[in-house]
């Protein structure tokens, strides 16, 4: 029976109702099946199928997510994307450099005409303008090619297939299969990947997904990886060189995924122990991508977004770097002092102090690590002009860079602490700075271990040869 109970304590201000149902019997199944059968009847009454159709989605999925072909196709797709990017970006990069540095000369002339003080010219042109010019010339062309391709695959619905292929590995690592999805989203942006971890209900698995998300390179890191791979690993002159460069970046992505799995496994076996929950991953239907919209969106939302972020950070970073490079303390510049201070640590893992400093200063956005590094190198170099990618290569070599340095740089870039935005997002999503700090510490540790290993292996190999 039903009664309004005034005596109920838990609901002092609320109406209270008691209901009775046959306690043991639940009608859930019958209710659900009644709804389903109604839906079936209605659907059958209003639908006509003109002809029996081959379900192309299923056919394609059989191939793309097959046990044998799934992985090779995945790697091949990524390699093709990178190959197109690398072979296409080189020439526009060179043109952009030339134009922008020609403009710098013109502007310098203008400064001289008006007898502008040296420090003003230094901060504005050698600091801010040049950093931005590098950001634009090094990063814009790969972005303008890579992002539309990436958006194309995303719109097509291929990325969830990637997640599907990887799902099995995540389960074996003791974490939620949905982490394959959040990781894949991290390729776009780690902050987005961290937010996407909301789709994982279990707090334990969600935390692991959040902490490990930045192990896969985001859109902000790809341009630098592509640029370094094409100057140091394969080169861009020949088809073979381009293919090798593309393969190197694919390799880095694989390293990122492996480290994600490895660290997830370690976490789920130690501090965040538990049983993985199961879930059903739905493969969305393939949708014909709309080329016009893809171009527009990838240019507006991705390319210009990343570029704008890079420029916004590069302006003050360029100014600050120039200032610390030009303020001297006891004969050497502050920048030099900081770089040399970090140098022993850097050398230990096959990098140098200037590189570590660039990564530290690049915390707000990964996009500006290379420009800051170039600025630093340039301030202690006889070279003044950096008009072509070849000149950048020359500068790096003059600073002692070898293939191993480039590899370590790329590894460090993939694995090191997440950018400022991602760290803030981790804080917001977990509700504590502690986890953001854990994420930063853990990733940086992984980066150090990986680079140290590469350096050791390289020196052993070097000794053998």
């Amino acid at each position, binding site marked *: *029976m*039903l009664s*309004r109970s005034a005596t109920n304590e838990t*609901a002092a201000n*609320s*109406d*209270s*109702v*008691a*209901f*009775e*149902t*046959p*306690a043991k019997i*639940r*009608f*859930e199944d*019958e*209710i*659900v099946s*009644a*709804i*389903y059968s*109604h*839906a079936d009847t*209605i659907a*059958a*009454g*209003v639908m*006509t*199928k*003109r*002809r029996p159709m081959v379900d192309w989605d299923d056919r394609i999925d059989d191939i793309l997510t097959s046990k044998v072909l799934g992985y090779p196709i995945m790697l091949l797709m990524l390699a093709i994307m990178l190959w197109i990017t690398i072979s296409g970006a080189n020439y526009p990069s060179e043109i952009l450099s030339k134009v922008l540095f020609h403009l710098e000369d013109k502007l310098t002339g203008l400064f001289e005409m008006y007898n502008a003080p040296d420090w003003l010219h230094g901060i504005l042109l050698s600091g801010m303008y040049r950093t931005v010019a590098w950001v634009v010339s090094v990063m814009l062309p790969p972005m303008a090619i890579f992002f539309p391709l990436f*958006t194309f695959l*995303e*719109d*097509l619905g291929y*990325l*969830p297939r990637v997640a599907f292929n990887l799902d099995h590995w995540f389960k074996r690592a003791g974490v939620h299969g949905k982490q394959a*999805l959040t990781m894949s989203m991290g390729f*776009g942006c780690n902050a987005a990947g961290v*937010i*996407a971890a*909301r*789709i994982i*209900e279990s*707090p334990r698995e969600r*935390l692991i997904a959040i902490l490990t998300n930045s192990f896969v390179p985001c859109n902000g890191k790809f341009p630098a990886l592509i640029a370094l791979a094409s100057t140091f690993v394969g080169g861009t002159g020949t088809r073979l060189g381009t293919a090798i460069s593309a393969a190197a970046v694919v390799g880095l992505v694989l390293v990122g995924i492996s480290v994600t799995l490895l660290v997830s496994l370690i976490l789920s076996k130690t501090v965040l122990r538990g049983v993985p929950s199961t879930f059903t*991953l*739905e*493969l*969305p*239907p393939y*949708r014909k991508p*709309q080329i016009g919209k893809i171009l527009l*969106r990838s240019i507006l939302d991705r390319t210009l977004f990343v570029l704008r972020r890079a420029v916004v950070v590069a302006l003050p970073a360029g100014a600050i770097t120039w200032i610390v490079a030009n303020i001297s303390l006891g004969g050497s510049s502050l920048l030099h002092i900081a770089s040399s201070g970090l140098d022993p640590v850097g050398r230990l893992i096959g990098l140098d102090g200037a590189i570590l400093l660039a990564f530290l200063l690049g915390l707000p956005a990964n996009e500006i690590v290379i420009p800051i590094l170039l600025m630093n190198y340039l301030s202690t170099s006889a070279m003044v002009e950096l008009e072509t990618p070849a000149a950048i290569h020359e500068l790096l070599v003059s600073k002692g860079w070898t293939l191993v340095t480039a590899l370590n740089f790329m590894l460090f870039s993939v694995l090191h602490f997440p950018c400022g935005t991602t760290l803030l997002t981790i804080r917001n*999503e*977990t*509700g*504590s700075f502690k986890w953001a700090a854990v994420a930063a510490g853990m990733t940086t540790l992984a980066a150090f271990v990986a680079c140290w290993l590469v350096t050791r292996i390289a020196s052993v190999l070097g000794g053998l040869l």
Partner: protein
Amino acid sequence: MFRSAYSSSPLKMIRNGVTAASPPPDYTVALAGNPNTGKSTVFNNLTGLNQHTGNWAGKTVAQARGTYVHDGKRVLLVDLPGTYSLLSHSPEEQIARDFICFAHPDATVVVADATCLQRNLNLVLQVMEMTSKVVVCLNLIDEAERKGIEVDCGRLSKELGVPVVPTAARSGYGLDNLKETIDALASGRLSTRPLVVRYPPTIEKEIERLEKQLSPVLAGKLNPRWVALRLLDGDRTIVESIEKHLGVLIQSDKRKVPA
């Protein structure tokens, strides 16, 4: 350790948060639907927002809100998380369910995928049990056509007792019609007679009994038949939500019903 991903109640967000800067909307409209029906595309095209997140299953993790103006009236559109049903109590489903039940939207649009109508109708029927102000947005009609599937919208609308608007949101086809239908429904110019799903007699008997007990306390704020059904399928979360939003406590008394 964790803040809930859904920490603020959708109702509070709607009633307090959104409208702080802009004038209050004339209508609030909920957008429900299965995942991957192009719900977000419908949302983006109606509101002009462009939140590109690609073709992902389950990408709408919290609901997005946006407004559009139709016929001089401001309409606040709330994109609910995509769900297959409103019965199995995942966080997404609870958000969607509670919004439709307790925020009293002036209309609820259920975006349905024309290429797999059956599965999508399950959700439509469930929403229709909660509110009569339902519009079915039969999306991806172009894709259905490509697959050789034809849907008789007029007949579907008759069967369901609510308006059905065919759309192809990606190209914008049918969206003006959808806005017009939403407006007609929200303003009360258009009334609906939603199909009532009939259950086996044993369940109907229980529903009838509970309905009688529930309707005086729910006082028209919630459909008693629907609440009765939730109690019958043993859903405890609805009891909590009713207490939270309506201040009505429904308790089970432990006595057994004579068989």
